[in-house]
């Protein structure tokens, strides 16, 4: 009894001790990911080269649009308020296309996640791609995991300072190139590049290059996995996208356990295949142990699969101790009774797929029906209407005609649903009151005219009458209309 009491007391006091010793805030443990080769590493390199290639090179694509228009294939000209995407010109009032693409992106992400887990995080997220690039630089300059860990423990030396300095310099150069490439999407790339180096570019350009250089350097160089674990909202709600049929990076516990060291020639009877080499932990960019099961920090990059494949082939055991698999299939496999097919088609994926198709077709239809001209009419309200000496009633309107093409166009402006009405352009020379007016709309711009609409004394409808302004392209068949009202005295 007495010894038990003592034992208990000791245990409880040691528990107290550990509680009071542990700080309220745990410092970050620096992650030193080890280099690995293998199938998924190759896929990651390929995706990295592809995505970075697109990001850095697209602003340099040229596209001839004729004189007066920029020759950059993709240019989001904020100053000129036009988005140039090959032969498509997007005006500010059409930014709703962005909404469509954002919805597509979100639903696409849902679909990919419910099928393959966090492939976005593991392979194509900018944070992952740039961190991968920065880690590659780090490895080239500072060596692999063990060398880096050793050097970080050592006191400062010329060698250490030189390597660290070189690493940060290369990081900053990559970061600056990243910020620079971002700016090139908004301005003419070749001429701006020259201006940047000559110190002639605008303050805004230097500011945004500086800002994106700083964020790239900080997020990919220093913050790394903390962005995924603490800053990014996606891991928080990915659980809602995943289910037991999603492919995720899986450690096959039923096969691997009980784990333990293994010497060549020892029997594999009565033990698991995991030899506890720790390679899967060493290569993990977020510093977790996949053998603990699916967890928040796992970005699904598959590097631990490569690591385990390497180890399993060394000890000559079946590959795939860590593999892409679903929870449902693992459950069946664990019982040892056959295997289950992967269900890619299930209500969730069908719904996401259908949603994707619907949104994509809506965008496509809206885009196909898009007009190259646009009409906007605003009635002048002060005064509401004017009584002329003949007794006729006149309203005036500000009419704006958008010509989205690269050539001037001729339009016929008329008013419908108001019998007897005549139109005149304010400030036109001479007396030109007619039923329809001829207007010229300059290329790639909005032409504004003030239009006087007059209804003779006898045929003025009382109060407010809905009418419709219509423009017709005199050469083509395009027609655009805009509703308005005609206001007269209320008898």
């Amino acid at each position, binding site marked *: 009894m007495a010894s038990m009491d003592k034992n208990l007391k000791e245990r409880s006091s040691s528990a107290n001790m550990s509680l009071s010793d542990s700080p*309220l805030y745990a410092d970050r443990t620096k992650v030193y990911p080890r280099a690995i080769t293998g199938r998924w590493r190759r896929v990651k390199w390929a995706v990295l080269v592809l995505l970075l290639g697109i990001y850095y090179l697209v602003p340099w694509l040229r596209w001839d649009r004729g004189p007066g228009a920029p020759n950059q294939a993709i240019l989001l000209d904020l100053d000129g308020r036009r988005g140039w995407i090959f032969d498509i010109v997007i005006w500010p009032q059409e930014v709703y296309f962005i909404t469509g693409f954002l919805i597509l992106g979100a639903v696409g992400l849902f679909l990919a996640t419910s099928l393959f887990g966090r492939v976005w995080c593991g392979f194509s997220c900018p944070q992952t791609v740039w961190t991968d690039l920065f880690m590659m630089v780090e490895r080239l300059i500072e060596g692999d995991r063990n060398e880096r860990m050793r050097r970080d423990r050592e006191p400062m030396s010329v060698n250490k300072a030189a390597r660290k300095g070189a690493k940060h310099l290369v990081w900053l150069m990559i970061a600056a190139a990243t910020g620079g490439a971002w700016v090139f999407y908004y301005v003419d790339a070749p001429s701006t590049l020259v201006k940047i180096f000559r110190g002639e570019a605008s303050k805004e350009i230097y500011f945004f290059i500086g800002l994106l250089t700083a964020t790239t350097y900080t997020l990919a160089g220093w913050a790394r996995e903390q962005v995924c674990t603490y800053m990014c909202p996606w891991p928080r709600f990915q659980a809602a996208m995943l289910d037991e049929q999603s492919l995720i990076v899986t450690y096959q516990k039923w096969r691997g356990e009980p784990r333990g060291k293994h010497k060549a020639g020892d029997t594999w009877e009565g033990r698991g295949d995991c030899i506890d080499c720790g390679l899967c932990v060493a290569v993990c960019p977020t510093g977790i142990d996949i053998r603990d099961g699916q967890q928040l920090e796992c970005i699904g990059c598959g590097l631990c699969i490569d690591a385990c494949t390497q180890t399993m082939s060394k000890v000559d055991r079946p590959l795939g101790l860590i593999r892409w698999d679903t929870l449902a299939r693992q459950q069946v496999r664990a019982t040892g009774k056959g295997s289950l097919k992967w269900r890619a088609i299930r209500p969730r994926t069908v719904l996401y797929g259908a949603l994707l198709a619907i949104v994509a077709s809506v965008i496509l239809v809206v885009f196909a029906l898009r007009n190259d001209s646009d009409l906007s009419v605003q009635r002048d309200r002060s*005064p509401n209407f*004017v009584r*002329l000496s003949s*007794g006729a009633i006149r309203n*005036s309107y500000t009419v704006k005609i958008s010509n989205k093409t690269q050539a001037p166009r001729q339009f016929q402006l008329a008013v419908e649903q108001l019998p007897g009405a005549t139109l005149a352009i304010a*400030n036109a020379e001479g007396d030109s009151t007619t039923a329809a007016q001829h207007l010229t709309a300059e290329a790639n711009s909005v032409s504004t005219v003030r239009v006087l609409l007059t209804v003779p004394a006898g045929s003025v409808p009382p109060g407010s009458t809905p009418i419709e302004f219509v423009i017709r392209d005199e050469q083509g068949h395009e027609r655009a209309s805009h509703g308005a009202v005609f206001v007269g005295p209320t008898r």
Partner: protein
Amino acid sequence: MPTKIEKDQLSGTDTTGHEWDGIKELNTPLPSWWLYTFYACIAFAIVYSVLYPAWPWFNGHTTGLIGYSTRAELTQELDAQAKARAVFIDRIRATPIGDIRKDPELFNFAVAGGRSAFQTTCMQCHGAGGAGNLGFPNLVDDDWLWGGTLDQIYTTIRYGVRNANDKSHQSQMPRFGADQILTAAQVSAVADYVLSLSGKAKATPEGKKVFEDNCVACHGPEGKGNQELGAPNLTDGIWLYGGDRQSIYNSIFYAHAGSMPAWGDRLDDATIKMLAIYVHNLGGGR
């Protein structure tokens, strides 16, 4: 209050020594980022109050070493703006008013400048959109007292109506009733006749005779008015002082003589040109 500062086991931080019902308060140090931001703010405040106007004083305030002043900055901005506008203003001053319309860029500037000047000096009487008020003419319609061509509008704005300026439009309608030129019955008859010109009453021979004897000199034999004299057109259903019978009776009995300032005495010529172009462009210009 007794204070007993002790070390907290869990956090390793001292307590403040205060205790309320067994609850002790940790004396957690401020986060260093907060503290350094605070120090930086103090340093900034000192530097700022030395460089910029900051402290109230008995006879004003400290002006700061670099001599910054918001008033000076405003003056500078206004000067810069005036300089930017001067290019157009000078061209408007040099261009005959009728030719301004031929240059779309100059014309647009004139309309915008005219609108701005109108909102400052004209809208008090003529309304924000130029639609006028009782006794203040509507500038949007096509009925003009002193003429609706660009030059006539310019002249009216520059010299005004019935004011002390020698060149202002001058005319005076007699007070037919009040000065006993006509009897009340005659005024009543001619009021009916005037109404009949726009088809709102039946003309009587008596009214017609009074009109022909007293009114045609200015308003013309058909009542169509005379812009030389600022005599309104009586046939068009547009009334400056009201078109109902009582209003017309009063106008004849007491007469009206509206006045408008000579804006040439107060505004520069370019502004008056812009105003004329703006008013002409409202829709009623001839």
